[in-house]
């Protein structure tokens, strides 16, 4: 693995530990609203009137930004990883099915995939979130529903390519039944692009979730996510910019780490195939 890829993996690991651990050991409840007047909109790196130190300041209700961001990180990371992985899984299944069965099924699956790919993903997400009630489950379902097409295309191509290889022919000649052939011989060798797409998709899914939540169509307050925290700071941007800026920094770092890791996985798999990896 390259250095950036390792750095990306390390950043994600540290973030995961932080978002799990910090809310557990936090001295105050990050959702509770206390004495608002004396604690609200404290700038970063300063103390409120009661003497509590706030690393990233407080929001309009006097809640500690850092703690809330860590709590929001749980949601954002989980939704991103889940949305991307499930989307890749659905895409793999449909792509493999299309290539394996061929015929009308293949034509149908690929036509729907092409049509959905013609609509910008955010627009598709907006359309779906306008039609169904917003919430955590809806976000994940919509992310999966709008994220499977690219992987399906890739996997279909790979399965078609691998199916023509001599070892598959050999297995067929040995009498390996169709389903077993697909699961044991074809799919494992066709999964590379799906793995890359799933890894690179995590950052994208996190961005899309935050975008939807920013618009009020994703994760609903009081459950914090980075996107709805930025939305919460939107009208304070002129007097207390940190409320909107800080969660965005967490987003940038996370998506950057996920992209570096994804790039690394892609290069590594590409090297593996041509036999040039370290």
């Amino acid at each position, binding site marked *: 693995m390259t250095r950036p890829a390792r750095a990306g993996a390390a950043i994600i690991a540290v973030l995961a530990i932080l978002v799990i651990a910090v809310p557990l050991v936090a001295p105050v409840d990050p959702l509770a609203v206390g004495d608002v007047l004396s604690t609200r909109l404290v700038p970063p790196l300063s103390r409120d009137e009661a003497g509590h130190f706030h690393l990233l300041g407080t929001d309009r209700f006097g809640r500690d930004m850092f703690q809330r961001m860590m709590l929001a990180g749980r949601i954002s990371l989980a939704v991103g990883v889940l949305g991307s992985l499930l989307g890749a899984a659905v895409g793999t299944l449909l792509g493999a099915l299309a290539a394996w069965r061929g015929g009308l099924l293949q034509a149908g699956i690929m036509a729907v995939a092409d049509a959905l790919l013609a609509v910008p993903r*955010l627009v598709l997400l907006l359309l779906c979130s306008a039609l169904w009630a917003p919430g955590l489950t809806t976000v994940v379902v919509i992310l999966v529903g709008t994220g499977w097409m690219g992987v399906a295309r890739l996997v279909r191509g790979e399965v078609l390519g691998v199916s023509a290889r001599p070892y598959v022919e050999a297995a067929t000649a040995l009498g390996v039944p169709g389903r077993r052939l697909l699961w044991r011989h074809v799919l494992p060798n066709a999964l590379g692009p799906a793995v890359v797409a799933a890894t690179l998709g995590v950052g994208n899914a996190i961005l899309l979730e935050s*975008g939807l939540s920013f618009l009020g169509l994703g994760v609903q307050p009081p459950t914090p996510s980075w996107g709805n925290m930025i939305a919460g700071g939107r009208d304070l941007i002129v007097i207390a910019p940190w409320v909107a800026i800080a969660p965005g920094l967490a987003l940038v770092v996370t998506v950057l780490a996920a992209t570096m890791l994804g790039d690394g996985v892609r290069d590594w798999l590409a090297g593996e195939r041509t036999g040039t990896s370290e």
Partner: protein
Amino acid sequence: MRALLTRLSTALFLFWLVVSITFVLVHLAPGDATTLLVPPDASPADAALLRGRLGLDAPVAVQYGRWTWSVVRGDLGTSFATGRAVTSILADALPVSLALGGISLLLSFVIGTTIGAAQAVRRGRPLDHLLTVVTTTVYAAPSFWLALSLVALFTYGAAKWGFPEVLRLPAFGMRDPAGEATGVAALMDLIRHAVLPVAVLTAVGAGGIARYARSALADVVHADFVRTARARGAGPLRALAGHALPVALPPLVILLALALPGVIAGSVFVESIFAWPGMGRAMLTAIAARDYPVVMGATIVYAAMVIVANLVADLMLPLLDPRRRR
């Protein structure tokens, strides 16, 4: 000619599929428009009357037929919220988005390829690493957050650090609300209002394009024919612009078409934050009001733009490639 016809019919087929999928999605959604349009205390008879007037009491197949037929005739229905024709709402909003997106796309293409070319030439050197960090960060940053950060910089920051008058760029709206300026002054006002939205969209687009341009150019810059050109006495700039770029550009033009959805998506946020009356804002307003015809119409227009862009890129590719030119 045959290839052209195949491409055209594929594009039309795709468009029909998008129209059908939006129909299916809207009909899969729980409830129908009448639950939103009638007051809660309305009688079931009133609701049924409205259903009849909106054509919602017809069988699904008939509704689907009507919907496709009206799209074919260029009629996208009537807005629930305002009673205006959807096409007229979108026709007002589209030019704003096209101008915003078009300028940004062009700028991001120029800036993105320049950065990518610089990286490809200096591959593995400090400049390459620095630019990789910058482009990947911009690529990773949500556009709405970049936009808000700029708003913060030019409102909170401008006041705190005392920006000079020239740099006090307006952060909201398309023109000065009190402005009665005409001619050049009005144009200058519009340009000043456009700086921040265009900057955000350009940054997001350029980040992505630079990432592709770097890898597309890296293979070409060190190709044999470029080395030959250098050996025959072409300067480094001439070898890059005259020999490497023409070969590497066609795939990048495809990128322009592929970058379009990203810019469109970015403009949804940018229009919302900077209060520009474009397609994105029209769609968000419609979503908030559960104004399905406008949401469906906007989706279809967006898809049509992407399909046309892909078609144009497809058809331009052979014309641009010097190796396939006769």
